[in-house]
Structures are given as C-alpha cells and as structure tokens.
C-alpha cells in the first residue's frame, strides 16, 4: 500500500513528460474528408530526402515537416494530388516519389523483373525439352551388363532356395 502511494504520483508525473506529448506533431484540419485522404496519400508516397528510407509522413526531419506543410497548404487550396506531386517533382526530381513514373529512363526498372521472369521461363523450357529428347540412361544400358545383372539375380535366388 505504501509503495502504491508514492508510485502513483510518480507515474503520473512521468506521463506528463512522455515524449509523444512533447513531440509537437502538427495537427492539420481539413474541410473535406477527400482533402484529408489526398493529404494522407501524398505524405505516404513522397520520400523524405534527408532520411531517404522514410516517407514524409513518417519522418521528423525538418525538411519533411516543411514539405508536409507545403502539401497541406496546397491541398487546402484545392489542388489535386497530381498537381502537388508535380510541384514536388519540379523541385526535387523523381527521387521524391516512392513510385517512380513510367518513362524512358525508368523503363528497365518497370520491365526488368518481367524480362528476367521471361528469360527464366525460356531457360526452364529449354532444359525440359533437352531432358525429354535425350535418351535416358536406362535405355542406353547395353545387353552385356543386362545379362550380367540377370545372372547375379539368379545366383542369389539359387542360394536362397538351397
């Protein structure tokens, strides 16, 4: 009982200093649910250039905060998702996109995996065909060794019978 008496206020005190409460994450309010959806999608698909393996929704880098703000302002002005994305790409390049656009320089990126899969299928098919057309080893056993085997078996059988 005694312990609880001093543990409880201490716990409450610690809660006050808990980092989520201090971490000033900006709260944005939207006029329509659609705007909020667009904003969420944008921040999840745009890459933070400072910590490159995070999107700007998940990063706490100052630049990510600034870009979130820019995205919010534009969404609130009624800009479409594509317009905001173009705005970002104009300044930071395709690198801000987690989903690279399909164009000449990124063709290999998009088609590459399919190409490799195709190559793998061709190789597999050719191996299969080669296997089938090749006479298997069982067919190529010559008469002499067959005869040998037959005799060995017969000898064994005779021994058992005796």
């Amino acid at each position: 009982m005694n312990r609880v008496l001093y543990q409880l206020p201490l716990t409450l005190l610690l809660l006050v200093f808990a980092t989520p409460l201090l971490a000033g994450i900006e709260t944005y309010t939207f006029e329509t649910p659609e705007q909020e959806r667009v904003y969420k999608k944008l921040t999840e698909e745009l890459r933070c250039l400072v910590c490159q393996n995070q999107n700007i929704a998940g990063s706490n880098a100052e630049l990510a905060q600034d870009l979130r703000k820019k995205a919010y302002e534009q969404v609130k002005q009624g800009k479409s998702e594509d317009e905001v994305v173009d705005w970002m790409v104009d300044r930071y390049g395709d690198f801000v996109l987690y989903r690279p656009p399909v164009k000449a320089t990124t063709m290999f990126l998009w088609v590459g995996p399919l190409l490799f899969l195709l190559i793998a299928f061709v190789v597999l098919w050719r191996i299969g065909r080669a296997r089938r057309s090749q006479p298997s080893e069982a067919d190529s056993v010559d008469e002499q060794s067959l005869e040998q085997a037959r005799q060995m078996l017969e000898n064994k059988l005779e021994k058992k019978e005796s």
Partner: protein
Amino acid sequence: MKSMRYVVPLLFFIALVALLLKGLGQDPKEVPSPLVGKQAPAFTAQQLHVPEKQFSAADLKGQVWVLNVWASWCFSCRAEHELVTRMAREHGITVVGLNYKDEPADAKAWLQQFGNPYVTSVMDQQGDIGIEYGVYGVPESFIIDKAGVIRRKVIGPINDSPDEKPQNSVEELLAFMNKLEAEE
C-alpha cells in the same frame, strides 16, 4: 556449342556484377536536381545586414554568380567557408549567401568570426526559398549563368582535396565558371 551453355550465364553474371558495382559507387545522398538547365527560381528577400533592403535574384542578370546556401548551425559550411572566401576574394566570383533557417544574430556573429565572402546574404528563416531551389541539406551551391539559368548544383561542401568528390572541387568549379563567363 556445348561450352556456350556456361559462357552465356557467365557473361550475364559479369554484366550484373558490373551494374551493381556501378550502383555501389554512387552516392545515394546525391540526388540529381531537376532544376539544372532551368531558369533559377525568382525570389526577393530581406538582406541579412540591411533588412530594410530587398535582394532579388533578377538583380544579377548578366552575371555568372553563385548562390551558396549556408547557416551558422551547419558544421560542413565551416569546412567550405575558406574555399568560398577564396573563390570570392581571389577569383572575383560573385557569391550570394542564402542564409538558411538561421537566426540573424547567429548568422552575423558567424560571418564576423569566419569572414564574409558574400556580396550579400539573404535571409530564408522559414526555408521557403530553399524549397523553391530544392535544397535538402546544407551546404549546397548553385552556379547560375548570365541568362539566369542554373547550370550546376553542388551538393555538400566544396573541397580542395583530390580524395573527395571531384565534382565539388574548387578548381573544377572555377574552371566551369570561367567557361560560363566566356559565353555570350
């Protein structure tokens, strides 16, 4: 013909290794800027030392100049500062400072301590001009030609050592600007 069965996959493998090796040699922190070859974004901003006076990027039309993004809190800026100073003082390069997300008092003290190579420094306390230029780390520098087109973006500190990024070497940048200077 039979030997081809091994040669083709081997060549394939070698090509793949070469591709991956090339990728390893690249610095992922160096994001190519889409602004190179485009008109430098226009901006008008307060000057650090004379806040009542505005500076506009258009003021320098007809000149080759450098926009050097710096901040007093930026450690690598100190490393390149000596070279920026050399470019300005010894080679007569026009360098404009973009004082990025800084406190004016800190920025002024920093310049007092390390010397001021800038024709002027403009304040970008909110980082808005920085975003227009696609700045994502400090220091960065933009080389702008007489027509106001960004011709090169230097990411990270300028250096004068052969061991560091050759595209950031001060000699290379000076040579590049000499070439721009010769253009009409």
